[in-house]
């Protein structure tokens, strides 16, 4: 090493700060779970995304699903987004509200303000890969998405990477900061389409998202994003069906069925 290099080495060792906080194994493994969660969330989310895109698409999609079309690349045989969200063929008999010009899968949905889980699911359904970064934030509850990149509405082909910055647990505020579930449910419907597109009318038919197995907050966000009103029923599950606390174990109407927008969807939690 010459003297320049030695001085650079000295400068680096002196200047690189110590990390503001350490990582724990949980953060790493939770991310992995988040990623794998996409595969089971896809069918429900795809249905939801389609419903946002347009009523006709929703009806067609549920037909596709019931027709047993599955994506060979998904190991669980789950219907992948590509199988469900295709060809918005405007069929005049189904609905006059189809909006084939707004294709949610091409522009990045707005997920700022959602919980991390909900945002990841919304983005996964739109076909994007998600990278989560945590950052300290004093103003919002931990687990809330505080920034996204690219910005909402940016055109990005499916498969593109979307970065999320999620509020970390508040360290300065004596702990007990809000859990992810305490974030207000933010309807995502407005996010996925430009404002110029009028939403499907109240009472139009929409595919019901499958939310069994999700947390209450996520399920509510999903259902509300599609246009349902949500009722929560707390009731012990059948003894044969052990359910983790806070998880939806049953829903009516069932996921995949078609119901009118504005219909009440009932979620059962233990």
């Amino acid at each position, binding site marked *: 090493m010459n003297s320049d290099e030695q*001085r*650079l*080495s000295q400068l*680096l060792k002196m*200047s690189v700060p*110590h*990390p503001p906080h350490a*990582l724990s*194994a949980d953060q790493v493994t939770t991310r992995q779970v988040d990623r794998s969660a996409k595969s089971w969330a896809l069918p429900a989310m795809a249905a939801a995304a389609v419903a946002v895109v347009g009523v006709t698409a929703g009806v067609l999609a549920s037909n596709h699903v019931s027709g047993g079309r599955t994506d060979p690349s998904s190991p669980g045989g789950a219907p992948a987004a590509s199988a469900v969200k295709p060809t918005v063929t405007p069929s005049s008999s189904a609905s006059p509200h189809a909006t084939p010009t707004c294709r949610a899968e091409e522009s990045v949905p707005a997920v700022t303000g959602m919980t991390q889980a909900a945002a990841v699911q919304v983005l996964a359904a739109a076909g994007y890969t998600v990278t989560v970064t945590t950052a300290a934030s004093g103003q919002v509850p931990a687990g809330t998405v505080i920034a996204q*990149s690219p910005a909402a509405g940016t055109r990005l082909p499916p498969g593109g990477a979307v970065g999320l910055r999620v509020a970390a647990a508040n360290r300065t505020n004596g702990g007990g900061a809000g859990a992810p579930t305490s974030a207000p449910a933010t309807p995502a419907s407005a996010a996925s389409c430009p404002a110029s597109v009028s939403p499907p009318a109240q009472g139009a038919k929409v595919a019901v998202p499958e939310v069994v197995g999700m947390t209450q907050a996520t399920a509510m966000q999903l259902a509300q994003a599609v246009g349902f009103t949500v009722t929560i029923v707390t009731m012990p599950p059948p003894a044969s069906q052990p359910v983790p606390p806070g998880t939806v174990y049953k829903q009516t109407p069932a996921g995949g069925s078609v119901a009118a927008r504005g219909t009440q969807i009932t979620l059962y939690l233990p």
Partner: protein
Amino acid sequence: MPQPPDFADFVRGRSGPMLRAAWLLTGGDWALAEDLVQTALGEVWRRWDRVADMAAPDAYAHRAMVNTCLRWRGRRWTGEIASAYLPESAATGGFQQVEMREALVRALRELTVKQRAVIMLRYFEDRTEAETADIMGCSVGTVKSQAAKAMGKLRHAPGLKDFLTGETAA
């Protein structure tokens, strides 16, 4: 999902040094650095059964981190968010150190990711040219040329020039 027992220990021990290295790789962006380390450790975790038996699991993790960073080169958001969230200024150290650090961050952002990786491996972690080439998956010649280019840029960076050319005492 079952988690092999020592992975938590591994993360506890290695995340600090990896974060500091990632801070250099990302041009002083803690959020991006954490993202990078989390991603690299995620790779390690997925292959932990095999990695845990390796002679140097930390080298594997390090390689995963550098490669991830090099892969991220083209990502649109690497520079985009960084400007909205300025790096926290250090709470410790004298003014001189703080100014030096800010000058370093500005200078690092003028470098390419590859140049930052060479700088980090060669001069922060004191690895040899051969080790650096091995981790980055390139030739020793590339390491030399990238190091020289980076050095050339840093030598003329405002705020670092005096220090690196030895005109002021450290």
